[in-house]
């Protein structure tokens, strides 16, 4: 795209993926060439970058200010170095379409491929392989970014590491990322070899997860929080690894790196105001989901979308919670606080909320980024419709339990924590703020989340 004199902008009311807490802002569509103009043009309320808006809460909104949307840039693969240099506005979906047929995979993928590379770095996203491979930032070698004063800098783990690590997990508050270079994972096939275990109790799930974690690159468990009695937290554990050529049947061997990723359905725009999620529908769904899983099956070959991005099969599924939207409560506790994890799971089950998205995962060690979420131990993520009253009280109690054992909450999912909860969960905040002070002394970068949490 050539340089433009006039920035393209419009007013809009924005929310995150959870559809809660809208705010009005001026949305400015930019590319590398007009980025500096757009930054110079920012009003008193400042600006924030927005990727595909897949954060659940308000980090990619900026009420009364500007929201900058970066056009997708290029995808350049260096097969020798095993790296890709990608525009920060490019989606993971587009990256996968380019790299998988060439025998590479991204080092980390979240549960949806509709995130941008900028969003992936800003949230320092983690995937089902965190226990072995760490989060996205661990695999980034260079970030090209534009700072508040419109200078463009390249930072990496050896090149201004303070700014690099403050940007990894920094929720867009250190500058506008333009381009990111990250390492790729070579793969022989586009299939994932999956072992599935249906486990009748939470204890079985957790025991099996710990026992098998060093054997599998990918591992995650889904839990049934509407089961009762001894079956509370029963679940389905799926462990995966990239399949090698020998594992493919003859037909698939012809095209070992074949990759197709399409949606099969889209939620209708008109969902009843109260959504379609209630205790009955979810209980039935959970029962079906649990029963459908084999007691034990090993070496089943699944496609990348089926294993990693099953939710992407249905477009706009976030509307099922109705007009009031939903939150995802995601937190971490260290290994020695497994009791806290178990007791929160039991209390969630006791509350009998209609929860069908419950993901339990093991984390490996964290990285040097002060605001990166993952740390060794356990993490749980649950989706809860906002229409359910008293969840504020319940989540407040969980917050205290999590903080008491040195745990924390994920900024990419956060939509409701208090500034106090955030500060206590991230003891290295001051370190991050010092870097921010250096690169953005006037506080140009700001979001609804940064104001709500006192981040900036």
């Amino acid at each position, binding site marked *: 795209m050539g340089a433009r004199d006039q920035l393209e902008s419009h*007013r*809009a*009311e924005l929310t995150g993926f*959870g559809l*809660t*807490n*809208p*705010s*009005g*802002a001026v949305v400015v569509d930019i590319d590398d060439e007009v980025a500096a103009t757009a930054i110079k043009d920012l009003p008193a*309320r400042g600006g924030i970058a927005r990727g595909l808006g897949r954060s659940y*809460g*308000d980090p990619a909104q*900026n*009420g*009364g*200010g500007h929201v900058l949307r970066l056009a997708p840039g290029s995808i350049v693969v260096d097969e020798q170095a095993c790296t890709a240099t990608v525009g920060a506005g490019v989606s993971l979906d587009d990256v996968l379409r380019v790299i998988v047929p060439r025998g590479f995979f991204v080092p980390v993928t979240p549960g949806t491929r509709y995130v941008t590379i900028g969003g992936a770095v800003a949230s320092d996203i983690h995937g089902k392989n965190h226990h072995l491979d760490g989060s996205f930032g661990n695999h980034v070698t260079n970030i090209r970014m534009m700072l508040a004063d419109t200078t463009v800098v390249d930072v990496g783990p050896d090149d201004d590491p303070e700014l690099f690590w403050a940007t990894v997990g920094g929720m867009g508050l250190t500058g506008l990322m333009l381009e990111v270079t990250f390492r790729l994972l070579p793969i022989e096939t586009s299939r994932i070899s999956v072992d599935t275990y249906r486990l009748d109790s939470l204890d079985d799930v957790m025991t099996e997860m710990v026992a098998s974690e060093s054997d599998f690159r990918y591992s995650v468990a889904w839990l049934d929080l509407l089961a009762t009695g001894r079956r509370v937290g029963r679940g389905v554990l799926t462990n995966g690894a990239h399949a090698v050529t020998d594992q493919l049947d003859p037909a698939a061997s012809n095209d070992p790196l074949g990759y197709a990723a399409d949606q099969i359905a889209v939620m209708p725009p008109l969902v009843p105001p109260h959504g379609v999620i209630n205790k009955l529908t979810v209980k039935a769904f959970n029962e079906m989901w649990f029963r459908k899983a084999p007691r034990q099956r090993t070496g089943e070959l699944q496609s990348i979308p089926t294993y990693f991005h099953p939710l992407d099969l249905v477009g706009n599924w976030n509307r099922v919670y109705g*007009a*009031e*939207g939903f*939150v995802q409560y995601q937190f971490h506790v260290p290994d020695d606080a497994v009791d806290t994890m178990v007791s929160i799971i039991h209390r969630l089950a006791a509350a009998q909320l209609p929860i069908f998205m419950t993901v339990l995962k093991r984390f490996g060690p964290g990285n040097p980024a002060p605001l990166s979420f993952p740390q060794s131990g356990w993490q749980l993520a649950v989706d809860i419709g*906002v229409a359910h009253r008293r*969840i*504020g009280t319940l*989540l*407040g109690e969980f917050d205290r339990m999590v903080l008491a054992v040195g745990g924390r909450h994920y900024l990419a999912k956060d*939509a*409701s*924590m*208090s500034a*106090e909860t955030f500060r206590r969960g991230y003891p290295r905040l001051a370190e991050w703020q010092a870097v921010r002070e250096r690169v953005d002394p006037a506080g140009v970068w700001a979001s*609804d989340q940064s*104001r*709500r949490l006192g981040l900036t």
Partner: protein
Amino acid sequence: MQNALHEAQTIVLLGGTSEIGRAIVEQLVTPATRTLVLACRRPDEANPDEFARDGLNVVTTYFDAAATDTHDPFVRGLAADHGDLDVVVVAFGQLGDQADFDADPQAAAEVVHVNYTGAVTACLATAAQMRRQGHGHITVLSSVAGERARASNYVYGSSKAGIDAFAQGLGDALQGTGVRVTVVRPGFVHSKMTRGMKSAPFATTPRVVGELTAEAMRKGKHTVWTPGILRYVFMTLRHVPRPIFRRLPLG
């Protein structure tokens, strides 16, 4: 900035001694709330202790609904002191006495000035601030008295009819800006304002009005009748011929 659970950080009550206003605020304060401003003409009577809670800063401040030229600087000052205003409840108002109005039309002008003109400037000043911040919720206390004016209090009723229409229009004008407006139409509420008056059918309490209003705000509703049945009562009353309406025992 309020959070996804509609828990506001900063709440302002214009008409800080209004019983209904306070009952609404009571329902809106959560552990997430940092600042509550009670703004009224007699801040020393605003009794901040009633809301005292760990971590909550309750501020009382002078605000005169009749001094319309002060409203814009007042709201700007609040934002300068306390940051973004998440919720502003516009609850001031005077009932007056129809007999006094008949004797002294100027007394009527004062009531109308506060209930209508003052509410208009307060709402506009608040709306401007909320546009600047790109979010916020304005809750305006109207009354069923504005739905159909009655012989016993038509000055009050007409001022509420005005502010009700204004607030609906304001809500529509703010569509797409991140700012919401909820209009509350209580029926007869047992409170200071109505002490000694004959209770009307479907009378309610400030607490019920507070609960229903908080619920409506969470759901993003534009109007809330309290109690809810009044919506249907007035659907009917609107069409009752005047000779009959005049004779209805509506208090």
